[in-house]
């Protein structure tokens, strides 16, 4: 089973990337390439949501890819949110403390609620973090 990728723009400043299969030293290149193509298209300050529902396996190589994405998003004032990691992947994340806990969401509802809240903050011009 290899890596499967699917990406879509739900808004100009929001992209959802669905990653499935195995993300390892063999396949991380595919993700890196895809993101290299995708991220520039996203508006500054945008949000990329990586849906991990179908990702069965991740190794350190995959983690490095995620780190690269977050780094490049952060450079542009954007956010990287991880959605729905499966137990195996979640375990790996936990071990290496890969991402802040508040950027990982177990379901779409949680994510939507978070996004709405963020939206409001921007609208109200309140820059303070929660």
């Amino acid at each position: 089973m290899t890596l499967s990728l699917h990406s879509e723009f739900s808004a100009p400043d929001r992209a959802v990337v669905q990653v499935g299969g195995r993300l390892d030293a063999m396949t991380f290149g595919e993700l890196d390439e895809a993101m290299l193509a995708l991220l520039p298209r996203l508006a500054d300050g945008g949000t990329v949501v990586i849906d991990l529902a179908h990702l069965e396996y991740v190794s350190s190589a995959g983690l490095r890819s995620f780190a690269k994405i977050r780094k490049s998003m952060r450079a542009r004032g954007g956010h990287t949110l991880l959605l729905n990691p499966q137990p195996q992947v979640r375990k790996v994340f936990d071990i290496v403390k890969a991402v802040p806990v508040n950027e990982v969401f177990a379901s779409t509802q949680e994510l939507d609620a978070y996004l709405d809240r963020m939206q409001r903050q921007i609208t109200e011009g309140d820059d303070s973090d929660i």
Partner: protein
Amino acid sequence: MALRSIASRTALWVLVGSTVVLAAIGALLLSLTRAQILQHTHHEAAALAANAGSQIQARIDRVAVSAQMLATIVATRQDDAEPLLRDTLSTNLDMDGLAAVFTPSPDPSDAPMYSPFVRRLDDGSLTSRNLSQDSNPYWNSNWFLGGLGCASGCWQRPFLSLSRHRQVINYSVAIERNGHPTGIINADVTLDWLHNILSSLDKPAGAYAFVLDSDGNYLAHDNPVLVGKRGSPALLNALASDQAGTMRLRVAQNPRARGPVWVYSAPIEGTRWRLGLVVPEYQTYASVRRIFMLSLALGLLALLGVSLITLLTIRRTMAPLGVLADRAEHVARGELDFELPPARRPDEVGRLTQSFDHMRRELALHLEDLARVAREKQRLASELEIAHQIQLGLLPNAHYLDAVCAQFELHAALRPARAVGGDLYSYFMLDPQRFFVMVGDVSDKGIPAALFMAQTITLAKALAPRAQTPQNLLHLLNLELCRGNDSCMFVTLLCGLLDTGSGDLVLASAGHEPPILCGRGAPQLLEFPTGAVLGLYEDSTYPEHRLRLRTGETLLMYTDGITEASDHEQQMYGIERTVESLVQVPSTATTAGYIERLLGDVDHFVADAAQADDITLLALTWHGTGVPATGIDIDNRLPDVFVALDRCEQLLQEAKVPASLHGDVRLVLEELMVNTVEYGYPDGRPGRIRLLLQSRPGATTIELIDDGIAFDPLQSAAPTLTGDLADREQIGGLGIHLARTMTDEMRYTRDAQGNHLLLRFTYPTEDGSSP
């Protein structure tokens, strides 16, 4: 008892001995004195008797001379006879009467002759008469006829004069004229003077005297009763014999004398009389006896005195001995603190006292010494006992059964020859997969060996996790033991590392006896090259020997206490007998069965000879089926890694390893192999990576072997985890961290083949948690 004391006994013996000596000497002296006294008495008595005889003779001679003179004168002057008689009688008081009688004329017509008889009356006046006028004419009487024959005078028989009431004896002398007797002069002599002479004799007390006449009658006797009586036949016979002068009569005639008597007699010249002096024998010896009794009494008194002095002297001398005897009893009771009598003189007792005192002091010192030695010994014994316990504590249990999957079983026995010994055995799980076992024998015996043994066993346990392999362990152990080993002690050691999954066994030996493999066919002595003993040469190396135990096989490790066990003839048990003994063990025997059999045979061989060396036996039996490991070999290229990962996952599925583990295994293997491929060959040379996978109930182990540069993932530092990977400048070390975290156990060794990394994954239990 008084006789219990030496003083009393000595005094008694002195008394008895002296008495005997004194008695003997006394008896001898008495007999000598007796003879002398007897002789003296004889002499005296004989002299006395002779003297008395002379006195009597003198008196008699006077009578005889007077009578003869008268006879001569009267022969011529017959008519003057009466005045002559009167004159003579008046001057001679011994005579009582005098008569001059004449033979009558043959012619009867002639006028009768005047035959005067003058007699002294009691008042001393003289009276005379003419005997011719007597109615009873004298010329026919015996005394006249007898007297005519006595020309030179003779004594007639005594007779009792009725007129004068006394004993009278006549002396008759014939008056001769012209050679013919014409008459006789007859002198009457009373015997009173004889009595007087006898009684006036200076006789010894109890003695008496007598005078016998010619007929054997007593003329005179101190006992008047006997006068006139005849002497006893014994006396008369004795007197008639040759030794008439001195003789002994058993019984005296005189009733006044008792017992035997001595009779001394002397003849009275001029008569046929005999004077006798009788001395009773007891009288003779009376003085001797008296002196003897006196001497005896004095002697006894002296002896008593001597005994008393002896008693007192010895008592005084021996008094310290009594005290010493008393003190000796104190010594026997162990009481040594007492007073001794002062040693007054340097004699035997003084020396004894000094020696006793010396002995007492020496004994006290000795006892103290002894007590100290005993305490020391006790302390040593108790320390030895503690050491024994500690040493036993260093040894693991004699029985070990692989509790997880009962793949193997171990039995051991250690018999020290003394309280503590130098033999050792040990075993432990080096990790959940591998079991370490060793048997060793320290040179020498006793406490030094025990200390060295303790050092060896402790070091071995401490170094084993670092060493990981038997040969490494021996090497490290050797270096440690060589350090500061000035006493040049050494230990032989046989190490084994058992892979509890496969039954693979790696052995390495440091000069130890080769182990024996039993259980399938004949016992086989595993001879393989060994290294030097531990503790002597720092540069020793220890070759390894590999073998795989098959089910039912038992590896027997032992020390030379078995092969060198000796019987009374100093014959050793030897390896041949050892193998022979093991042949007898049935293949179905338990692990303990081997030990029991061999120990039993050795005991039987040795019998009751003393055990010279420690004996250690260890039997390791493999019960496992030995799941074979599946190997995957790849080149050091990334695609190959993923081929291997897929193959591995497939194997895990086939082995029905829980699915939840598949991801972990894959992740760990990917991280490690990718790491190896990327960094293990910096010179870009081609390499080989080998995966050995073994799945058993409960856990899966995977050995990862590569020939890249040395790399121990366990030694790499853990990454700093900030909570956001995006914060990190360099993303590295995560893979190793992941691998380490996700394996239940990871172990690294490096050998000639390269890096060995042993990974172990334990299956989650029912409730989902890891064990």
